[in-house]
């Protein structure tokens, strides 16, 4: 994800403070030269297709024939003429609302546990807990999951829960980031608190969590964005249909069906843009709330 490169976790700050001020750079051309491979990829594979898809979202493009301009028709129809669209929005919101907190709690819990270990033990368990995430996006794992929870995924009431559990189980990435954050917390601060008589819980709530809040924020934003885009697991577990009875009709799955099995690529593009805007708005809201609960070390 591009975002990992842009929103760096805050603890990096403490390092930056010690660095000498940056010299003004005369030859920016060299910088662009080195950036070129990335820029080419970003423009060719991300920006340009996005612009095309924005255009297509205002057309009746059907994959095969020349698109015709239909104005905002695709957008209007999504909300006025399509019960399945609302179903897919509902499924996705439920998934995001449950799977993100669950995954982050698990990641934080395991990170705290691992942080209390030292030496080889930590390295081993860190790898062990991270393993499911490495395999996470793989189709094979989703297939295995499907086979294990056979009856669950074939029952409408349990199918979504199964996919939520599958996603929560892959808590490795946020866990590693939490762990890095935990190791940035100054040892002397914790020692001082301990000398002052603070117990484990007191240290957790008064020092560890506040110091960790920038990392929590980072993980929250990232995982929320990921969750909205969840596709692979739902696609594989439901056999590509979002079933049974539309109970796992994720937004992305419906979008895919629209575009590639119903050939309504214009409408699918409109769906993608609605998703993009919703994710942008939710991310912005998260950023707004961050000022009330995210604590950067330099504040008083």
């Amino acid at each position, binding site marked *: 994800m591009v975002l990992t490169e842009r929103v760096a976790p805050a603890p990096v700050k403490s390092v930056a403070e010690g660095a000498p001020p940056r010299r003004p750079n005369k030859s920016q051309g060299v910088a662009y030269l080195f950036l070129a491979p990335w820029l080419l990829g970003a423009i060719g594979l991300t920006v340009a297709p996005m612009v095309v898809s924005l255009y297509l979202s205002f057309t009746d493009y059907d994959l*095969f024939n020349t698109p015709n301009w239909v104005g905002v028709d695709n957008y209007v129809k999504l909300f006025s003429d399509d019960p399945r669209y609302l179903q897919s929005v509902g499924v996705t919101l439920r998934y995001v609302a449950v799977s993100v907190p669950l995954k982050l709690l698990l990641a934080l819990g395991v990170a705290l546990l691992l942080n209390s270990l030292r030496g080889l033990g930590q390295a081993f368990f860190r790898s062990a807990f991270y393993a499911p995430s490495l395999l996470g996006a793989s189709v094979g794992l989703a297939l295995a999951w499907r086979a294990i929870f056979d009856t669950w995924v074939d029952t409408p009431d349990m199918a979504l829960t199964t996919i939520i559990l599958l996603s929560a189980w892959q808590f490795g990435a946020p866990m590693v980031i939490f762990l890095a954050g935990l190791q940035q917390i100054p040892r002397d601060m914790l020692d001082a608190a301990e000398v002052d008589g603070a117990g484990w819980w007191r240290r957790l709530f008064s020092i560890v969590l506040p110091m960790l809040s920038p990392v929590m924020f980072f993980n929250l934003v990232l995982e929320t964005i990921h969750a909205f885009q969840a596709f692979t697991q739902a696609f594989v577990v439901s056999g590509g249909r979002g079933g049974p009875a539309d109970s796992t009709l994720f937004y992305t799955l419906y979008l895919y069906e629209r575009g590639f099995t119903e050939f309504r690529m214009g409408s699918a593009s409109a769906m993608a843009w609605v998703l993009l805007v919703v994710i942008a708005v939710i991310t912005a809201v998260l950023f707004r709330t961050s000022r009330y609960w995210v604590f950067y070390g330099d504040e008083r």
Partner: protein
Amino acid sequence: MKAHKVVGLLIGAALVASGCGGGGGTASGGPAEIKFVWWGNDDRAKLTNEAVKLFQERNSNIKVTTSFQNFQTYFEKLSTEIAGGNAPDVIQMDYRYLNEYAGRNVLLDLTPNLGKEIRTADWNQGFIGSGKLNNKQVAMPLAQNATAIAYDPKLFADAGVEEPAIGWTWQDYKDRAGKIQAKNENKIAGSTDFGGTEDVFETWLRQRGKKLYADDGKLGYTKDDLKAFWQLSKDFRDAKATTPPELVTTLNAGAEQSPLGKKLSASEHSYDSLFGGYNTVRPNELKLGPYPSDSKDSLGSYRKPSQLISVSARTKAKDASIKLVDFLLNDPDAGKILGANRGLPANLKVREQVSQNLTGTNKVIFEYEKSVDAKLGDAPAAPPKGDGAIYKLMQRTHEEVVFGKKSIDQALEDFFGEAERALS
């Protein structure tokens, strides 16, 4: 964003395709490279690749690359490839999707080649017409199949009930399936729930003298028809004669994955051409029988093109592609290799030749077709655009009924609303 990435890939694919497309041979008889795709399973892939190999041996200047998927993913991949300007040259096509693709001008009109490059002298002329849309021959039927009940004769015998045979009714089916299920203490169902499958619904409609689509392409049935059909499926469930809700699966998942293939059901509605798939997972255990029918005259089944074969309208190797099509359809040696894997060969001479020397799967399929042949009707016109969506819609809305999410009446309301939208 996933969608954008997908679009990106498409554009990338388009660029690559347009950049590299110049190399393909165009001159008649010159070297050419063509891509041939189909849906099916390993069993079919083995035979098809063998036939393609023979074709290449005889035409050393033509190189054929092949690929296959299961039915569902096949059409998703195909649409993407065509949109990306990377269309395969020779395409196995489904009756249900014929209008979907031909209506969008992506299939080559083979009319000028009929009787010439594509030999048709040994064909049932009526059957050729099943590949025709608006007077354009956009596909050639590859083989003929018909709806059938695939079943496990041992389970029928153990429960002391008769096997499917012409003349049996839906009531008979329910009674026998109920007895089988009781005998197996509900661990093996008597039948597979059929209420969500449009293929079964179509056959059932035809038994009652109706059609899936009227001549103008609108729905050929009313709410009452579908209601009666869903009620029939519910009667099976109430009588404990069919699979439980969590096994509501489809033919699309492949015979291997179906309740009968997994030995969770004693019988299911299917196509005779799928028998090879069943036979892979349950070798020599299963048989084919006719659909039950309440009509004395009609089984509802018809001579269906089990698959068709088309050439892409944008192919750069038209002659080589047509040559491959003709080879697969008409060459006696290709016929020998392919057997009845896709159903009965369309070329009657090839069919005759294959029937001389029948073994295993081919034998079962041929004997079944022979036993019902007198009762088979001609194929209806290819379903209109939107049928692919309605097929899935029926499955989905029926699932909602089975899981008790909706009453039959509510589901009917939703079904007809969405179906009419899909056809518009």
